[in-house]
């Protein structure tokens, strides 16, 4: 998801004499390891196997540990040691997500950052006013000693908080010009509607749904903040890649009979489905 056209970079170097730096937003793709439990010998074996298969793919990529299911990682867990072990394998841990307060504290102590998991990111302005100020940001309280039922408040809470966002997505971004190769359009607040064609090499990114009333030949990434209810609709499908909430399909993986059709793409139980609209 890296963007910034080269021309822009040239400009910034031109102006470099005036200001020591410029602040630019940028999106990076991080790799999330969903931990089933605290890492043991089998974990490192599995990591080694993964690296042996595609050694270059993971080099220099930022890694995030998802601790949602790793309840046995306690407050005294040695994140520093784990980061060192991973570093030896040329894997760089940058942070954790879905951790308990204790897990987050231990991770912070080890120099890792705590990242909000996809579903519970909310822009400040959109936060329900009722939400108590002192609520811990990434996740509400949950027992740090394990034995947590995933269906209880901890897992449910984000979805409840998500609801007002989907209902109040008034901030759709409308594009009426063709989206050219190399252009990237990001609807950071809601849906993205394109009433033109999207060329190969162009990229559409939206927090919510993506609608293309034209031919979609480039890439479309909906629900990039983790909204798995987001969908992609297009008048004519010829996409290079479609993705919803981080799950993606390359053109090769899309049923060839859907090419050139009116389709929608959505997530069904964690599977990215593409089906024709009648």
């Amino acid at each position, binding site marked *: 998801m890296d963007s910034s*056209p*080269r*021309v822009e970079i*040239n400009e910034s170097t031109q102006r470099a004499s005036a200001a020591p730096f410029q602040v630019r937003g940028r999106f990076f793709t991080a790799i999330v390891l969903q931990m089933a439990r605290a890492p043991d010998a089998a974990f490192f074996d599995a990591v080694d196997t993964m690296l042996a298969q595609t050694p270059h793919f993971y080099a220099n990529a930022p890694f995030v540990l998802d601790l949602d299911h790793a309840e046995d990682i306690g407050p005294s867990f040695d994140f520093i040691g784990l980061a060192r072990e991973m570093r030896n394998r040329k894997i760089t841990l940058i942070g954790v997500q879905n951790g308990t307060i204790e897990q987050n504290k231990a991770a912070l102590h080890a120099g890792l950052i705590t990242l909000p998991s996809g579903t519970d990111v909310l822009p400040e302005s959109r936060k329900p006013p009722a939400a108590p100020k002192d609520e811990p940001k990434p996740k509400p309280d949950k027992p740090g000693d394990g034995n947590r039922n995933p269906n209880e408040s901890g897992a449910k809470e984000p979805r409840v908080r998500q609801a007002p966002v989907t209902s109040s997505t008034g901030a759709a971004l409308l594009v009426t010009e063709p989206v050219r190769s*190399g*252009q990237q359009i990001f609807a950071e607040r809601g849906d993205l509607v394109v009433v*033109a064609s999207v060329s*190969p090499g162009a990229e559409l990114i939206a927090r919510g749904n993506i609608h293309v009333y034209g*031919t979609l030949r480039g890439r479309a990434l909906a629900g990039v903040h983790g909204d798995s209810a987001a969908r992609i609709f297009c008048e004519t499908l010829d996409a290079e890649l479609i993705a919803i909430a981080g799950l993606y399909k390359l053109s090769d993986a899309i049923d060839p009979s859907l090419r050139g059709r009116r389709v929608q793409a959505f997530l069904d139980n964690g599977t990215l489905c593409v089906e024709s609209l009648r």
Partner: protein
Amino acid sequence: MAKVIVITSGKGGVGKTTSTASLGAGLALRGKKTVVIDFDVGLRNLDMVMGCERRVVFDFINVIQGDAKIKQALITDRRLENLSVLPTSQTRDKDALTREGVEKVINELRSEFDYILCDSPAGIERGAHLAMYFADEAVVVTNPEVSSVRDSDRVLGLLSSKTRRAEKGEAPVKNHLLLTRYDPVRVAKGEMLKVEDVLEILSIPLLGIVPESPTVLSASNVGTPVVLNQASNAGAAYADAVSRLMGVQTEMRVLGLERRGLLQRLLWRTA
């Protein structure tokens, strides 16, 4: 008021310089005072295609850096008195171009000429960016093949965002598609993209279709823009494109050319 037109493509080798030479000569033939500027600093080609490389004393970069007056660097064509060439430097590189310098030169030329054609280098870096920055119109030169179309599309995106008109929020740069090296036989065999396919992706108005022709290369080699050879199909196609660039409605001839592909082919062969 002079019109500044950039001839650009993104991809190299599609015929930007050849097209600049022919469009420039074509406009001059119709009595328009025209100057062609070579922005491809370090790879000086336009003066060769125009047949004036032996007359280059001062160049575009000398003018930008204040070492020469614009009158000293401009070369008037020996065949067409309305046509001038502003050659570029062979010894410098694109970093010698500055936005202020280019603006100054273009503003000076505006009072003298009706058309200022900027021959862009390939790529989307500094040289290409400055060639398009001050443009009022753009001729996007494209070959009927996928990588050329993709690069043209990228360039169209830059024309709509990285030009002075875009930055000042003025009327957008007017784009024209010039399809070059078009071979109807290979299109019929499916080896080349059809005109409709290219138009569907790029969705900008068609300025002309220049057929693949051996006369283009031989004209470049002797330094005569192919538009001056009216017996050549490519020359005739460029002459049509010049009419359209001047706003003369010859749109139907293009469509006819495409629809009567076979007949056209026969006519081209006997030409």
